[in-house]
């Protein structure tokens, strides 16, 4: 913990946490050069975020999931089933492409853990997806309309006893468990404890323990590679991840179709459920950031984009709780990094409502000139480079486009150069051209 933390304001906390992260405290560097490189790279990001000082140059942090694996000739399946392949590819990618902040290797996940759980919220290589391709989300109505009251009254209980059994086949028996509240008194504890002994529930817990065992082994194998990434001077672009409450409901619980109709059929339930999720999403982001000693909290935004809903609906259903999550993160010294998927051309004015110099918005398809104009001097922006050009273009086109983007978006600071989507694939010559052009034209 940072000295005096409890009595700091949110901006003091952010300054202290960012400074601690950027100093590389706690990392065993390979040498002084690696330490200096780390401090330079993390410093670029710190300066870009805070808007107080123009960085030496624009920090470059392409967001990637499976692209690094593909670039080294491995399949997604190999990476999901062998932590050494995953770790090696991430390490090589980070060094060869010399990114200022690199990907989060555990985001690739470990297939055997999912196998043990009978996980069906996603399809992944070997499970409905070709070996070469990354995982894909399976959106369904996992939470029924009649479940709102349970969810709102007690999200964790709902999550554990209703939602997990519906999305993890090995955990189906958990639906038979009573809530754990009987544990408060000896005479009331029996139903909970006795049910735990029922053979199907024992099997479910065994599956959960086995998944945990495999995951622990996996992270122990992967950890040293992540250690090497840090020790050779490369920070990671997130300490944890969380989500906008509306997206939690829309992605994992109700599904888009149902949630969009809920806006008319049961609007108050949607609002109550989103409100209920705010402290949970803040806590998740802060906890992970603290544990990983990295204040950047990644928030992928999905269902509030242009075209999904009207500004009135965005203002009522999507934005208030996202804003609360962002402010909650900042109050705890973290930096919300919204990954704004799709276009936000109609929404940019709303984004000015968060405290200045405390957040980042990485854009996908938003007009970057407009983003710079509206958010410049208020919040750090980033992204805007089309992944399509990385995949279908040549090095010259990529260089020209990068130069053009920087002219529009870099300003006098407060910009992070990134690709507009989390890359599952890339091409070596274009991605290297992107990195080189960023360093060449991104100098302030």
């Amino acid at each position, binding site marked *: 913990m940072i000295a005096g933390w409890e009595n700091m304001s949110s901006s003091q906390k952010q300054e202290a946490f960012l400074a601690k992260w950027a100093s590389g405290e706690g990392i065993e560097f390979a040498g002084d050069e690696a330490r200096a490189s780390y401090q330079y790279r993390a410093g670029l990001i710190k300066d870009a975020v805070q808007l107080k000082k123009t960085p030496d140059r624009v920090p470059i942090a392409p967001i990637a999931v499976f692209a690094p694996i593909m670039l080294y000739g491995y399949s997604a399946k190999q990476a999901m089933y062998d932590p050494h392949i995953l770790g090696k590819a991430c390490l090589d990618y980070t060094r060869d492409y010399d990114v200022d902040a690199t990907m989060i290797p555990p985001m690739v996940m470990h297939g055997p853990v999912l196998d043990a759980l009978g996980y069906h919220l996603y399809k992944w290589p070997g499970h409905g997806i070709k070996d070469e391709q990354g995982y*894909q989300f399976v959106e369904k109505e996992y939470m029924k309309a009649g479940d709102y009251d349970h969810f709102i009254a007690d999200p964790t209980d709902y999550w554990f006893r209703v939602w997990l059994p519906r999305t993890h086949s090995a955990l189906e028996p958990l639906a038979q468990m009573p809530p754990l509240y009987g544990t408060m008194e000896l005479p009331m504890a029996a139903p909970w404890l006795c049910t735990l002994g029922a053979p199907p529930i024992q099997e479910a817990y065994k599956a959960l323990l086995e998944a945990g065992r495999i995951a622990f082994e996996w992270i122990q194998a992967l950890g040293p590679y992540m250690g090497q990434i840090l020790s050779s001077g490369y920070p990671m672009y997130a300490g944890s991840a969380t989500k906008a409450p509306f997206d939690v409901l829309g992605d994992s619980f109700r599904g888009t179709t149902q949630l969009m109709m809920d806006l008319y059929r049961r609007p108050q339930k949607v609002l109550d459920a989103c409100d209920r999720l705010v402290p949970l999403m803040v806590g998740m982001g802060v906890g992970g950031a603290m544990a990983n000693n990295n204040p950047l909290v990644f928030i992928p935004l999905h269902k509030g984009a242009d075209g999904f809903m009207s500004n009135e609906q965005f203002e009522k259903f999507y934005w208030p709780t996202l804003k609360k999550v962002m402010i909650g993160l900042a109050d705890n010294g973290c930096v919300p990094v919204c990954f704004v998927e799709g276009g936000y051309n109609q929404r940019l004015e709303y984004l000015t409502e968060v405290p200045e110099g405390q957040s980042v918005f990485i854009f996908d398809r938003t007009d970057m000139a407009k983003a710079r104009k509206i958010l410049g001097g208020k919040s750090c922006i980033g992204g805007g480079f089309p992944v*399509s050009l990385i995949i279908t273009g040549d090095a010259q086109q990529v260089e020209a486009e990068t130069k053009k983007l920087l002219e529009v978006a870099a300003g006098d600071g407060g910009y992070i150069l990134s690709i507009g989507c989390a890359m599952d694939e890339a091409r070596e010559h274009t991605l290297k051209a992107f990195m080189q052009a960023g360093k060449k034209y991104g100098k302030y």
Partner: protein
Amino acid sequence: MQDLVKAVADMMEDEAMALTKKYVEQGVPPLQIIDAYKEALGIIGKRFEQCTYFVPELILAGEMMKTASEIIKPVMKGSQGDVEAPRIGRFLLGTVAGDIHDIGKDMVHMLMDINGFEVKDLGVDVPAQRFWDEYKDFQPDIIGMSGLLTLAFESMKEVADGLKEMGVRDKVKVIIGGGQMDEHACKYIGADAFVTDAVAGVNLCKKWVS
């Protein structure tokens, strides 16, 4: 029946369904009720174009149509027509090989249907061969390919290249849709147009067939 038209157009679902039931029970000819729905859909369509209606209204309108059809069906005699508008073109649709995302595709399906296209939806993870086979069978005016992921670029290109080899590329319009579709992807794939939202796609398709 302006009350029904207004209820449907303004997304007052409960009221719209109650009115539909009331008119059916009163013995109003089914075709009159259907006409009211057609009028409402016209208004809804305009609101999409004016960008006052978005995904929630699209989905709810589709749901109201479905429920209304079920209410009206029992009193329909033979094939008196249905709630659908007259057909203005044929549209072959699918999410391309390797991609299992269907929300965008389903919205396009619904919206194209409401706007008078005869839609054949091949589902998700559709191999190129099925697009080619269905092209021959269904003879669409337009082929719509959907994909959220960048891997869709290759799958879409394969379909478009195949249409060229079949010598039919100039006989059919090809439109691609999805979050990462842009002018670079469109050029690479060899599509006629790209869109990133369903309403824009439908408006473009309507222009093509008019």
